[in-house]
């Protein structure tokens, strides 16, 4: 059996989304900017997609939701746009973010630091959550932007976006949130949360890869990252990938309807909880960051004595895809900032495995996964030095 439990990395495209995209490759292929009917023929479905995108995050008609290539581009557009407009050409000097953002935020902020911008990286508490009061403590007169993720990709922990938005509004500082891991899992409402910029990515909610979006509140326009044609009202040049835009629109509609959110809350979380509770029956397992206030699909579990990548190996041998942020597994051997930021038991820093579900997972799959996981833990703990016999003649230095 093959079971995909890495939906925070990417998701399967919903068949309905795929159906809606199909006509835009060989049939309705005009350039939306052309005057002729080949071009204008693309417009009805693009308008429909925009309607779905606006509705999905409750954007007002006078706001902008621009189509980008991915959430990374959306994040770069905001941070570098703020840098150009408010710091290089303004009197601001400072950006606030958190220690556990996606590299699309962290690496961009590090780059700005190299250019002389002051950046504050707020820590998370032991539950892996950023406390809104910290933003109040560090926000200053010369703060140009606060950028805090809506939900964490590793733990699924949901951050107090509404409170942070209120603080930013009080101080008159623009507020950006990377909602990549939140769309389709929890209700995302830019009006309710005082969000000025919001990034998202279609492939995290059963849309295609290579397309994302950026919400920009009215009056918060920025110098574009990409200069060129007049597409997207001049905010993002480049011929729009119509098929992807239509796909993202439909994916948004399917993922953010009241029913879809309820399904996440009631069904996906039930499967996640079943998996999690079965794993927690094993001794010395723990949910990193605890169970409260998470996206319904995610659990990050530490198996004492089992190195994360070796766990992924055994899962993969049995057709299960999951993920770990542990250093060994990533190409560049970087340690996982999230595991480090929690400051949890350092012995556990390399033992975290993330399971992230979607509405396409079935109970049968979860039952199978539970069985495989239990066997893998038994096998790997059998090999593990931390469960090894220590003879009386030996003083363990482990």
């Amino acid at each position, binding site marked *: 059996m093959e079971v995909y439990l890495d939906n925070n990395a990417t998701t399967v495209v919903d068949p309905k989304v795929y159906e809606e995209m199909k006509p835009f490759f060989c049939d309705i292929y005009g350039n939306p900017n052309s005057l002729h009917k080949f071009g204008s023929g693309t417009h009805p479905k693009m308008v429909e997609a925009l309607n779905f995108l606006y509705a999905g995050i409750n954007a007002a008609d006078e706001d902008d939701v621009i189509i980008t290539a991915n959430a990374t581009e959306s994040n770069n557009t905001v941070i570098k746009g703020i840098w150009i407009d408010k710091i290089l050409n303004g009197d601001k000097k400072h950006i606030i973010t958190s220690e556990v953002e996606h590299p699309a935020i962290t690496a961009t902020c590090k780059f700005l630091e190299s250019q002389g911008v002051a950046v504050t990286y707020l820590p998370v508490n032991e539950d892996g959550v950023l406390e809104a009061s910290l933003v109040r403590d560090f926000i200053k007169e010369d703060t140009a932007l606060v950028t805090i993720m809506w939900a964490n990709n590793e733990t699924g922990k949901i951050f107090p976006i509404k409170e942070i938005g209120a603080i930013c509004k009080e101080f008159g500082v623009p507020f950006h949130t990377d909602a990549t891991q939140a769309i389709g899992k929890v209700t995302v409402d830019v009006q309710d949360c005082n969000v000025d910029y919001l990034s998202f990515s279609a492939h995290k909610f059963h849309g295609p890869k290579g397309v994302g979006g950026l919400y920009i509140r009215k009056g918060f326009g920025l110098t574009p990252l990409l200069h060129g044609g007049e597409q997207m009202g001049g905010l993002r040049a480049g011929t729009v990938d119509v098929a992807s835009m239509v796909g993202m629109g439909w994916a948004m509609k399917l993922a953010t309807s009241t029913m879809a959110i309820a399904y996440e809350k009631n069904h996906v979380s039930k499967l996640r909880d079943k998996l999690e509770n079965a794993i927690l029956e094993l001794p010395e397992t723990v949910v990193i960051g605890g169970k409260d206030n998470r996206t319904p699909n995610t659990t990050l579990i530490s198996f004492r004595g089992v190195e994360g990548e*070796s766990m992924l*190996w055994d899962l993969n041998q049995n057709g299960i895809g999951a993920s770990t942020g542990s250093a*060994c597994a990533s190409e560049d051997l*970087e340690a996982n900032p999230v595991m480090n930021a929690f400051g949890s038991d*350092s012995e556990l820093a*390399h033992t975290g495995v993330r399971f992230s579900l979607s509405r396409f997972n079935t109970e049968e799959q979860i039952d199978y996964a539970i069985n495989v996981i239990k066997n893998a833990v038994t096998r790997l703990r059998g*090999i593990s*030095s931390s469960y090894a016999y220590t003879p009386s003649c030996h003083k363990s230095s482990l």
Partner: protein
Amino acid sequence: MAKNSLISGSIWDEYSNQVVNRMNNPKHQGEITEERAAELGAKLIVADFGAESCGDAVRLYWAVNEETDVILESKFKSFGCGTAIASSDVMAELCIGKKVDEAVKITNIDVEFALRDNANTPAVPPQKMHCSVMAYDVIKKAAAEYKGVDMESFETEVIVCECARVSLGTIREVIRINDLTTVEQITDYTKAGAFCKSCIRPGGHEEKDIYLVDILADVRAEMAEEKMKSAADASAAGTLSFEKMTLVQRIKAIDSVLDSDIRPMLVMDGGNMEIIDIKENLPHFDLYIRYLGSCSGCSSGSSGTLYAIESVLQQKIDENIRVLPI
């Protein structure tokens, strides 16, 4: 390399079949108890290396015949990724039947080589090489325990890149001999830094005592200093050509000729001269001078005196010197 590096490949796909098989079914995984060691009439040695908090930990068990120093049985336990477990398995296997002194000579490179399916294809991708280093370290730890000596005593040289086992001495030597100026060149020449990259500069996977960037900077500074010193020595001995002199040496050389051959004559007439600048205008060296005292304004300054100065300098220092009064 560029095209191949655009899409990050799955590191698991680059594992040899041996790595895969040994990860799935390690043959030498397990423990040796005191009872088992007694049964074999052997001494039980247990050595730990690494720590779970660092991502890798291995424990090695040996049963050693104390009369012959031969390792009769060898088992391991490991907290680590697939490469770490497979490396530990081969490492334990390579120890069996060897004398302790022979086992100490097993390196991580031997371990990696033993994991290859064929001699020409690495068993693991570069960034996984460091996972085999621990297998090598734990052997030394076990041997040190058996012999009752310090683990460091087995290391005769400072190893900078543990993945490729390149010593400080080797790196310093290639920088000198080949006049290397970049870390990339060091990696090309020695393979140091080609694997886990931790030894290149601070901030990598593992913290090091010494990094390639520092070694390069140190050796380059030494080389620059030596070059200056040898130039100064040659200059003092009068064997250095004008072309190879530094600006300061050139000024000194010219000044000394002026002092001995020119200025006394000028001073007798109530004048003098000073050096303003020396510019390379290859193949010529243009010496800019200014006349002082009664020499300034003297018509001979642009004819007879000038030719005299120029010819003395050309004769005594370099034939390409031209003198230009301003």
